[in-house]
């Protein structure tokens, strides 16, 4: 602690340079935090998937449908505890830019399968009692200012008009919350029986099945049994863990993780050079001062530590500042709920960000600190004189 004024003095020596370097680190870590939140938003479904859930879809592609009759046959497979199905509806509210995911489901099966979607008992009962009822997530409800009881007109380019009506219309019977931050609350679910009755094509077909298995360790065997059951049929299936399914879905946009890592890597490498250059310049300018400290009895190791503390201070203050401000901005709200179903800075991104800041400080200061440590006193004082 008693050496901190010395560290502080080193940083104050060139205030403008220290400030600019701090700002560079600050901006880099803000960017890191925003990219972390973006990555979570675009691939968040992966982290929220259940280990005990499998997805059964058409072997050819996700847009190929499966018969509804498969449900009973899947339920009969050993190790299967529950089954529910969903179908991509692709509904649009007023304008195509108002995209949000919406799907018909069987309410009882669905709520049992996905306990992460939380509805009050009254909302559940209202949904079960309203044929055109729909439950919508908090994000989408707030985005469109929907309230319970509202009648929502939806158009579906995929399914066309419902029988006997000009457009699909749903009554909001519940607004669900997520059990975790990463729970996607941008979706709307409505009743399959209404959908099945009203659609004018592909009756008896569903998009995919979600299967809960009794023992997650048996996932591979159960998946194989399901696929074997439908092998050589007109609707062959591909069964995979929900996590793999969600990851594949996210990768339709691109390999988010790799893109983010590439950008963050390039930024951090640049910042490493900037901070390293600052410290190298600082040490070079202070050759004489470091020589004086050594002449006064400061050991080589102590000089090394002082220089490393300086670079670490810049990296940690700038890094934590950037992470902190980004966290505040991110916590203040989702800027584009239409595109990002969840938007938050995961705790592991904050922890790894702080660790990155520490490592950045140590690596950026390593070479200048080593040079300062190796400095010969007589040469340093001669250079100064």
């Amino acid at each position, binding site marked *: 602690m008693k050496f901190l*004024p*010395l560290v502080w003095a080193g940083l104050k*020596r060139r205030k403008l340079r220290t400030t600019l370097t701090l700002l560079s680190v600050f901006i880099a870590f803000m960017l890191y935090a925003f990219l972390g939140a973006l990555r979570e938003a675009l691939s968040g479904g992966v982290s929220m998937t259940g280990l005990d859930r499998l997805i059964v879809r058409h072997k050819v592609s996700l847009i190929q449908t499966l018969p509804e009759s498969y449900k009973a046959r899947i339920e009969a497979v050993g190790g299967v505890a529950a089954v529910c199905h969903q179908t991509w509806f692709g509904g649009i509210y007023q304008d195509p830019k108002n995209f949000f995911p919406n799907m018909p489901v069987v309410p009882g099966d669905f709520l049992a399968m996905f306990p992460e979607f939380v509805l009050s008992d009254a909302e559940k009962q209202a949904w079960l009692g309203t044929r055109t009822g729909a439950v919508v997530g908090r994000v989408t409800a707030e985005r469109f200012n929907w309230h319970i009881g509202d009648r929502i007109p939806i158009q579906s380019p995929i399914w066309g008009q419902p029988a006997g009506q000009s457009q699909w219309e749903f009554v909001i019977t519940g607004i669900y919350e997520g059990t975790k931050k990463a729970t996607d609350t941008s979706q709307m679910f409505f009743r399959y029986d209404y959908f099945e009755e009203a659609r004018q094509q592909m009756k008896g077909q569903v998009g995919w099945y979600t299967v809960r298995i009794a023992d997650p360790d048996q996932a591979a065997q159960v998946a194989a049994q399901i696929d074997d059951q439908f092998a050589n049929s007109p609707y062959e299936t591909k069964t995979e863990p929900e996590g793999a399914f969600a990851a594949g879905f996210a990768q339709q946009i691109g390999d988010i993780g790799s893109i983010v890592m590439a950008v963050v890597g390039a930024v951090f490498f640049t910042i490493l050079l900037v901070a390293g250059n600052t410290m190298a310049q600082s040490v070079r300018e202070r050759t*004489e001062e470091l020589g*004086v400290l050594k002449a*006064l*009895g400061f*050991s080589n190791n102590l000089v090394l530590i002082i220089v490393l503390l300086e670079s670490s201070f810049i990296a940690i203050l700038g890094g934590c500042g950037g992470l902190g401000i980004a966290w505040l901005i991110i916590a203040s709200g989702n800027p584009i709920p239409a595109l990002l179903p969840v938007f938050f800075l995961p705790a592991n991104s904050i922890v790894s960000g702080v660790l990155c800041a520490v490592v950045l400080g140590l690596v950026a200061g390593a070479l200048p600190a080593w040079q300062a440590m190796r400095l010969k006193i007589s040469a340093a004082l001669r250079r100064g004189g």
Partner: protein
Amino acid sequence: MNASSQPLVHISNVTKTFKRGSEDLHVLAGLDLAVQEAEFLALMGPSGSGKSTLLNLIGGLDRPTSGIIRIGEDRVDQLADRQQAVWRARHIGFVFQFYNLLPALSAGRNVELPLLLTGLDKADRRRHVAAALAAVGLPDCWPQFPRTLSGGEQQRVGIARAIVTDPTVLLCDEPTGDLDRKAGDEILTLLQTLNKDHGKTIIMVTHDPHASARASRTVYLDKGRLSDQPSA
């Protein structure tokens, strides 16, 4: 540190050779010197004669190529790097020609620097710093930064930094070399006071006969050898 009648600083047959390319440069050639405790020694000689090199060797900033350097009971030439640093902190006070204060630290913080290496707590450090600044006649300049002080005042702060740990030997490298006559005289008077009133052993490198006249003894260094008389 030196309880016997032996000299406090004992230098025997010291050589120092620098490499300049493929050429060997013999700066000190078998040099002997003894400095008694509480002596004020002036070391004179032309530029390049090896005065500062000798001072660096005595202060443990450099090592001799051969020979013995003993300060009190300690063989300075045999200390390892880390031991040298600890030894310097305890036994040597340096006064530099260009003061060498850290510009980003206040005068008080500059004087406090050597005390950071001791086990003193903050209150004790402050008391020592106040005493050292008072001893050099600048009791109120604690919060001032070097840039706000005159050359003479900066050198006084430099001397306060050198004496704050009560070192065994004060090594002064041209302490008046960057000062005008009046300020230089004040510094020399201060060094004399430290020597006479406080019993400080001082070794001062200087070009200036006016400065060396204040010392109790003057030795001359030329071509790597010492003598009691200047060379012709």
